[in-house]
């Protein structure tokens, strides 16, 4: 897929590399409830940033805003230098380049795994069926799902379903992948296989923004960890610092609760 990279802004010459994702002053409310209260965040090309924070801190909402599944109230979001929150932007074109994987998988239950994977390449990118299926099978093989290609999603385990959902997102060759608590709906023994897939993607240089409750995973996969609290990013830095020596008292409190719950 050819990627439309937009014109380079002369004012960005000071930045060494144009960030894959830049979020500025993002505000999002649901009715009277302000969920995001001015979020600033940059993710560099090939960088993995993990979002941590309590339930309701706005992690999922932030990801849904980046994927344009939720309209934003203020601020701007740029992907590879292009403002995707501009009013005249073609949202369908933007979404093609941004993959998202959901907590509840959201596979299409009426389609077999291979058809789940090839639907968007065929209908959105107009790929011929045999070409899309060959590419889809290759991706499924890479994630050890080739023998499930012709099964319906309800015949797969939770871990297999989530891996299939990741493959479905990858089939569109996104330049940015958003993962929304992809292991939260899984039984404990199925979490590892999904996290291994994400680790492999990180090694392969995929740019990712990951909302997660798995602190151990965040520590070893993330280049940076951002702590989201009450709609703001309170602290961001290398995982060893944010998870090991948090500067903010709120971050410390959160991590202590996580430790008490046995998740670290």
């Amino acid at each position, binding site marked *: 897929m050819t990627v439309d990279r937009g014109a380079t802004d002369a004012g960005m010459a000071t930045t060494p590399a144009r960030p894959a994702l830049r979020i500025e002053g993002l505000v999002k409310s649901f009715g009277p409830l302000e969920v995001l209260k001015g979020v600033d965040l940059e993710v560099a090309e090939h960088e993995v940033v993990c979002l941590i924070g309590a339930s309701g801190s706005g992690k999922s909402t932030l990801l849904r805003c980046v*994927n344009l*599944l939720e309209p934003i109230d203020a601020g701007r979001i740029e992907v590879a230098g292009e403002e995707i929150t501009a009013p005249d932007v073609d949202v*369908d*074109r933007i*979404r*093609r380049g*941004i*993959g*998202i994987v*959901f907590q*509840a998988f*959201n*596979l*299409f*239950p*009426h389609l077999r795994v291979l058809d789940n994977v090839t*639907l*968007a390449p065929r*209908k*959105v990118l107009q790929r011929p069926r045999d070409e899309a299926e060959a590419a889809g099978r290759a991706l499924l093989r890479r994630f050890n799902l080739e023998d499930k290609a012709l099964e*319906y999603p*309800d015949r797969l385990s939770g871990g297999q379903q989530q891996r299939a959902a990741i493959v*479905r*997102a990858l089939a*569109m060759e996104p330049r940015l992948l958003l993962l929304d608590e992809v292991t939260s709906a899984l039984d404990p023994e199925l979490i590892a296989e999904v996290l291994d897939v994400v680790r492999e993607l990180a090694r392969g240089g995929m740019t990712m923004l990951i909302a997660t409750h798995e602190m151990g995973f965040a520590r070893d996969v993330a280049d940076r960890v951002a702590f989201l609290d009450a709609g703001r990013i309170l602290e961001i830095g290398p995982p060893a610092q944010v998870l090991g020596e948090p500067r903010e008292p709120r971050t410390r409190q959160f991590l202590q609760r996580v430790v008490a719950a046995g998740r670290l």
Partner: protein
Amino acid sequence: MRRHGGWVAFASTLAVFGLLGVAIVNAPNWPAVQNSFFNSVRFDDALPDVAWAFRRNIELFVLAEVLVLCLGLVVAVMRSLPGPVFLPIRLLATAYVDIFRALPGVLVIFYLGLGLPALRIPGVPNDPFFWGLVALTLIYSAYVSEVYRAGIESVHPSQEAAARSLGLTRAQAMRFVVLPQAVRRVIPPLLNDFIGLQKDTVLVSFIGVVELFRTAQIKQAAAFNFTPYLAVALVFLVITLPLTRLVDWLVARDRRRSVAGGRP
């Protein structure tokens, strides 16, 4: 134990219906009623003609069912269009559905079948079969659009979100993800409406279509004997009973599936 229970059910059923039969046959005026409603000579005379005339009803409901499947879907999708731009279309569709569900079907058939041809507009057909078909299609499309709409709304919004996140347009998400799941779920209630439609084909006899009910009426008037209607009843039982059984079986199967935690 089960076999024993089966015999009890059989015996009690036989007893109840036997008693009912005895009560009717021993009623004071039974011989006269038998002669005018259950006359075997009249029955043998009427059945072939009535059954042959039923082909008109079959033509009518087969054509109407195909048209209803299409028009009902169009109206349902019109009512499901989001946003203020589509308000006029939603209003139009809603008004249509409300009016045609509120009016007795006979009135619609009368107005269309007798009223429109009476205007003598050049090019407007005056074939009662044509107007009966139009009237039944309009009446049942209103009901069926509601069935479709319930199906569309039963598909969780996360399915559309997943489709849109892959870059599918709203129309593509509807066509490839939402509708296939919605239609599968509404097949039983759809067939229920078709049973109603098949029975309502007798209403077009009032605007002069010579179908099975009209044929029975002619025979009844000629011999002043009501037995031909028994032939009508028999024809409908033969056609409709298997369909009602099929619907019940489909409903029971779906319930088993959802209890077993099958496909959502």
